[in-house]
């Protein structure tokens, strides 16, 4: 069921389009991650959803009701901005209660909801502390509790993990996930990190150029990115844009920045990029090179030990400065002694190449 329907949203900043005819449906009860590089307009989208910024054109419907021109006060959205902004002159309790008091609820109801939400967020022992007295992770929990206390129709989170130190990140992400599922709150989660999307998303919307470019389940986008840029934003290893395509008698020849790839079939559609999984490579130690395979020559740049048996090798591609290939292999498979700056030949079966 569609909870929020966004149609034709546009917004300019100094004549440049930040959002350009953006369309998006958000489903009831899902956690939608909006993934994009900084400056792609994802925060602007969030602020428009919160009612803080008015869009120039376009409409937003919440439960089939047009809320485009509603002020934030009338929207019932829970907004957690990127900077941890708690009211500095109020203790945690009053921060959390602020929205409830603004809605003029009775004292009993306020106390009841306060108890519920602070236990939910595990901050019930911090109530009398002031924002300056608690840690970054705790602040973010309080900000979440404050937003959740009003039981919002949509919860809007702007990079909620960005100002938390690494150790607290995963725990907070899992808390967000747990609470979102428990309360079935429709949530929009904005981030530039595909790792976070992997951790908690129901669906992912990849954004650039002011538009949602692809939306779907994370694995679907991972396996079937619409184009090279989306694959790159998803943080996939070993993706390269296609520079040039031509057909010869063997099949299609694809020119990449790391060299040419000869496919054994003719492609009917134009492709924007290719991906080769790190595990698809094998290291050729014999002198003979197979005609059937795609060959890359390179120099070992670094060797990263993954676990007892497996290593990831980063290979500098010969004739293509600043391009490198990541290769996953088990230690037994490497017949040579892996040392940095040794030369190496990689081969890949053309059927392993993912085109998009």
């Amino acid at each position: 069921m569609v909870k929020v329907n966004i149609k034709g949203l546009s917004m300019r900043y100094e004549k440049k389009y930040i959002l350009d005819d953006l369309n998006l449906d958000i489903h009831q009860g899902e956690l939608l991650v909006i993934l994009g590089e900084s400056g792609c307009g994802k925060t602007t989208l969030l602020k428009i959803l919160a009612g803080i910024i008015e869009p120039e054109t376009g409409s937003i419907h919440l439960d089939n009701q047009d809320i485009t021109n509603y002020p934030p006060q009338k929207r019932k959205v829970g907004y957690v901005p990127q900077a941890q902004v708690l009211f500095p002159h109020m203790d945690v309790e009053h921060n959390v209660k602020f929205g409830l008091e603004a809605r003029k609820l009775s004292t009993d109801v306020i106390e009841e909801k306060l108890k519920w939400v602070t236990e939910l967020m595990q901050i019930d022992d911090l109530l009398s502390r002031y924002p300056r007295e608690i840690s970054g992770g705790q602040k973010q929990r309080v900000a979440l509790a404050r937003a959740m206390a009003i039981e919002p129709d949509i919860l809007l989170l702007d990079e909620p993990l960005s100002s938390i130190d690494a150790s607290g990140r995963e725990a907070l992400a899992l808390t967000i996930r747990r609470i979102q599922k428990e309360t079935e709150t429709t949530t929009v989660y904005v981030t530039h990190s595909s790792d976070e999307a992997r951790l908690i998303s129901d669906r992912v919307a990849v954004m650039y150029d002011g538009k949602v470019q692809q939306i779907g389940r994370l694995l679907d986008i991972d396996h079937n990115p619409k184009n090279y840029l989306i694959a790159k934003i998803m943080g996939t290893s070993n993706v390269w844009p296609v520079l040039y395509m031509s057909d010869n008698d063997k099949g299609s020849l694809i020119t990449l920045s790391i060299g040419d790839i000869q496919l054994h079939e003719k492609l009917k559609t134009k492709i924007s990029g290719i991906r080769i999984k790190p595990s698809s490579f094998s290291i050729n130690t014999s002198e003979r090179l197979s005609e059937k395979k795609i060959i890359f020559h390179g120099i070992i740049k670094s060797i990263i030990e993954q676990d007892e048996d497996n290593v990831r090798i980063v290979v500098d591609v010969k004739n293509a400065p600043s391009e490198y290939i990541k290769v996953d292999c088990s230690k037994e498979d490497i017949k040579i002694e892996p040392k940095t700056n040794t030369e190496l030949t990689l081969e890949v079966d053309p059927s392993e190449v993912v085109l998009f």
Partner: protein
Amino acid sequence: MLVSQRKKTFERKALVNKFTIALAIIFLLSFLASFFYLPLIRIFQYGFSSETGNLAIILREIITDKVNLYSLAFTFGQALASTFICLIIGLPAGYFLAKYEFKGKKLLINLLTIPFVLPPIVVLSGFLVTYGNSGWINVIWKSLTNSSSPLISIFGTIEGVILAHVFYNISVIIRITIPAWQNIDYDQVEVSRTLGANKRRIFRKIIRPQIMNHVIAASLLVFVYTFNSFAIVLKLANPYYQTIEVLIYKSIRVSPDFTEASFLAIIQLILNSIIIIIYILFDRKSRQSAEGKESNLKTTIFQFSKQKWNIIIRNLGVIFFLILVGLFTFLPILAVIIRSFIPDKVGNSAFYGYQEFFSNKEISVLNANPLTLLGNTLWIAAISTVVTLLLSLIIVFILRSRYQSIKRYKTSKAESLISYLIILPMATSSITLATGVYLQFRNTSLFDNAVWIFVIISHVIISVPFATRSILAAYNRIDVELLNVASTLGASRTRIFRKIELPMIYKGIIVGGLFSFAISLGEFGATYFLAREDFKTLSIGIYDSISTQTMQIPLAMASLLIFVTILCFYAIHRLGEIELKV
């Protein structure tokens, strides 16, 4: 429908909001227009009109008038010299205070600021007690050398004026340059050293460019203060030397020539505006470069235990220098308080001044009771503070609508208009301001019967820029996202103002209020110009009676002013930042 009803209430609220802002703007503009801009226009009218004869000839006469030219040259010359000497003493003092760490350093910095925040008339009294013909320095000199000629002669000499100005303004240089030195990233110096730069090169290429903006901003401030100096020059140098301020005062109040006075006021206004605009540019630059930086200068602790003679001698030199600067700036203030307890005549008690003051006997030179002066001073300051805060809050309230415009990613027109409108009062000297008010209102019955109203108005216009700045400084620290969050939580605009904005700026409001109270308390120029014989405050009482034989009464009054002013600034210091700007 519920939805349409919601929308209606929202639209009605938005309309009310717009209406209140419009009302506030109208109130502010009409106040500024009637008490500042119209008087200013009146000055221009007088300056460029003449009832008798050809305007061009009269203007040429004014411009080529020897007294005027001489005064203009003197005003510039003494301002330049004072600024220069302030820099020579203030820059090293600022550096040492930033560089060296010792007990009581903060106290010393605060003590150094005291002369600057005191009323000019108190500073003048301290100066007379210390350096006057029968002042302490000269008495000690005479008894040491057995000569009858004084060491320093401050009356009718340029040295006197410059000395007084240096003493008054040196803390501006020190206070502004201390953070400049502290902000220099010591890592940069170390990196340059590893790159092979020698000390001179490091100073030239790394340190100087980073402190230059601060130094220039501070110098411009000192220049503007000394350029607009009134009380000190009126008392010390008149009639041999006069600043434009003194000349304007005299050509209105002593030998009325409104055309000449207005023309001089216009010159004064233009020069001031130019300097203030340059100052604002440099101040912005120095603030930008200091933004978000923490103190990085590696401080040195005085050490004497090591057997390194050069270090010991250097340290002793620095300590001696700082003590000298401290004595120079603080001694006159101390002298006022001490001297107020030393009887002028044999038989008077030490508390003679205070007894006379609180017994409320009329002082013959003043034609007024001392407690009346105190009362006048206090209630004028109180009313000025209330009005100033009201106006400043209105200004901030109008600027608050910037929040609305952020919605559309545009800068508010009201904001830029207001910020321009308050620059001009900043650039107007108190005598120019008083001239305008006088020319505009002198023929009204209100001016004859209740001149105090105009005294209050001039105090308000002088302190509004200060108060607005301290409130705005607090307001700008509020993260807009806080207000965004509050609105998504359902709080209305008024609720946000009451619950979030007001609690977060109340310190700024108190600081602004204390500022305008302290300014009004010691204001001399405009008050003296407008009220003269009709209405007296403590400042004027001190000025009128200090030259008489009995020093104790005026110095007792000065000590009272010192006490209250220091109290105000101590409170400001505890709450926030002391602003040095005009």
